């Protein structure tokens, strides 16, 4: 049975298992119909030209429900930002782990989507926000159909979260191959501030396929900093869909650090629905072996006087492949916007590939849009300069790669996280440099 058929037949059982009065019953049914119609995306679609899911879809994944697994904190501590106090919403094989989590209902809600679905007091929030910014796209619909568990974060107006929030999805490898579909809903109220760190982590060498959807709503003057740490096992793949709805004067920044995983697809979509929005998309991708990362970004400028800044750096070694498809869509009404896009890549090996495709569609006539894209090797003159100072070839290369990626790190606001990413970069490059990271 194909994975699609397996999913379709398991949906019937899944719906039966849920309570009948589930508020999103209709939404789920609509979604599965859409997925049935569209199926998994193929390379024939323009947006998937350079990323093939064929091999991934051949695995015999176990779907829901999962056996409950016990994970000791000491075994997974390193995946948390344990140097600082954080709220934590942790899932093990798709099931909420109250033991590893630290939630709150104090000034803000940091809890579970399943709880939000089932409790009356969240009903209006779910009705207002759930599946409202997510688009009808086959993988998103598939996630919506099975949407059951994930993080639910609600930051009320004028509240500044006192600590960062970590959302971590562990998979234990209890099954030979597992498919996970986490669904997160995040609402940042007017003038509210929040920092979120998201991570998917496999704890074994078994195959994992995660099809994740995160919906984010940033109300007027809201500030959101979102960090995606993608440093998973080489047997884990991630199809991520993040949708951000921005109201006027809001600032939303998403940093994506892609170092691990087998195949990663980042669909990152921003919709600016009010004036003076600022959207920031930054990424560092460092790949080796046969790894594949596809950044597919969209900034939809709907309103005037807004800004967007995209800056993605990629370093590709061995036979790794990267894709950058950055779309900036400026509507006729979106006058006086400033959209900037930058994508720089370094190919270390002759066999590494990057497909970079900036796409600018501009219907307004008074805007500032710029984009730049480079693909190159490390600068020979810079190498000679460093080596002539006694720095060996390997270290010199590392130093230059570090320098190359560095400006993306400057905007990381949590110092401990910045240090952590710095170390990950140094490890990934394979040298420990003699300076403070």
């Amino acid at each position, binding site marked *: 049975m194909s994975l699609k058929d397996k999913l379709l037949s398991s949906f019937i059982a899944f719906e039966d298992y849920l309570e009948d009065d589930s508020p999103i019953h209709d939404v789920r049914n609509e979604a599965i119909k859409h997925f049935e119609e569209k199926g998994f995306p193929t390379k024939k679609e323009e947006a998937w030209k350079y990323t093939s899911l064929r091999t991934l879809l051949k695995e015999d994944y176990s779907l829901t429900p999962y056996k409950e697994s016990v994970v000791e904190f000491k075994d997974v501590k390193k995946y948390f930002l344990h140097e600082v106090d954080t709220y934590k919403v942790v899932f093990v094989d798709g099931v909420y782990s109250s033991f590893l989590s630290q939630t709150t209902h104090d000034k803000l809600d940091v809890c579970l989507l399943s709880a939000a679905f089932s409790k009356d007091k969240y009903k209006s929030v779910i009705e207002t926000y759930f599946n409202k910014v997510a688009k009808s796209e086959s993988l998103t619909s598939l996630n919506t159909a099975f949407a059951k568990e994930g993080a639910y974060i609600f930051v009320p107006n004028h509240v500044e979260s006192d600590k960062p929030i970590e959302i971590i999805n562990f998979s234990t490898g209890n099954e030979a191959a597992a498919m996970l579909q986490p669904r997160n809903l995040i609402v940042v109220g007017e003038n509210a501030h929040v920092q979120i760190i998201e991570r998917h982590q496999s704890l074994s060498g078994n195959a994992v396929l995660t099809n994740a959807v995160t919906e984010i709503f940033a109300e007027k003057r809201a500030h959101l900093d979102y960090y995606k740490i993608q440093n998973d096992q080489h047997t884990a793949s991630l199809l991520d869909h993040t949708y951000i709805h921005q109201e006027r004067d809001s600032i939303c920044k998403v940093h994506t650090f892609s170092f691990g995983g087998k195949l990663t697809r980042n669909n990152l979509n921003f919709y600016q629905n009010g004036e003076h929005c600022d959207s920031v998309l930054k990424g560092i991708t460092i790949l080796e072996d046969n790894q594949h990362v596809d950044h597919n970004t969209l900034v939809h400028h709907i309103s005037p006087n807004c800004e967007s800044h995209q800056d993605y750096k990629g370093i590709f070694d061995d036979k790794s492949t990267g894709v950058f498809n950055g779309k900036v869509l400026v509507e006729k009404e979106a006058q006086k916007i400033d959209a900037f896009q930058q994508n720089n890549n370094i190919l270390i090996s002759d066999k590494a590939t990057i497909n970079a495709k900036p796409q600018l569609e501009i219907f307004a006539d008074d805007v500032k849009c710029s984009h730049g894209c480079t693909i190159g090797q490390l600068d020979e003159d810079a190498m000679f300069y460093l080596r*002539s100072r006694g720095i060996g*070839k390997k270290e010199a290369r590392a*130093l230059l790669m570090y*320098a190359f990626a560095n400006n993306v790190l400057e905007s990381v606001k949590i110092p401990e996280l910045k240090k952590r990413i710095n170390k990950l970069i140094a490890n990934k490059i394979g040298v420990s*440099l003699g300076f403070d990271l």
Partner: protein
Amino acid sequence: MLKIKNLRAGVEDKDILNGIDLHVSPGEVHAIMGPNGSGKSTLAAVVAGKEEFEVTEGEVLLDGEDISELDPEERAHKGVFLSFQYPVEIPGVTVTNFIKTAINETRKAQGMEDMPAGEMLKKIKEKADLLEIDRKFLSRSLNEGFSGGEKKRNEIFQLAMMEPKLAILDETDSGLDIDALKVVANGVNKLKSDDNAVIVITHYQRLLDYIVPDYVHVLMDGKIVKSGPKELAYELEKRGYDWIKEELV
């Protein structure tokens, strides 16, 4: 210390150095002058080990050992230092962290432990003072957004920190105003000893008022065509290079 014998080098099909002979003894300052395109910077880069240039003939001996096949970092470990005409910008790596890395990598190659942090700081402070470098400058990204003069001063700061046997200054005077030139020259003179040597590559006699050479060599078409005492530099300043060409004919 440095003996260059019949050195020929170039890129692909183009010969740039056509048989250079040069002997530099400890304690000496040599100036190399010559018109544009005569091969001055190439000579500096070839001695420092830039791989872009292929050595087709001859030897470069440092204390009797042929270094012409060594990697640039190995030459640095043996005490060769090149002050660049166009230093490279390295964003994200501070001047301090860069020099620490350079010194400790060199020490590692020499079988020594890392320099203790306290000693490193003291040395950085001492050399920064010598070159009148502001402490804030040291925490800036290497050469990023530096003015021409700041870049050159930073090169000499690195020279002071690394204490090489042989320092090659490639057009260190370009981009410096007279005050900065004096500071840089004074720094070089203070670092000068009976055990090390300096090769100054320059277009103008101006720098040589402050770093006084023992010998002046004229490089033309990849060959040293004339050598003499420091007075030769004055003559070149006054008369240009054409008279040497005529002399050769």
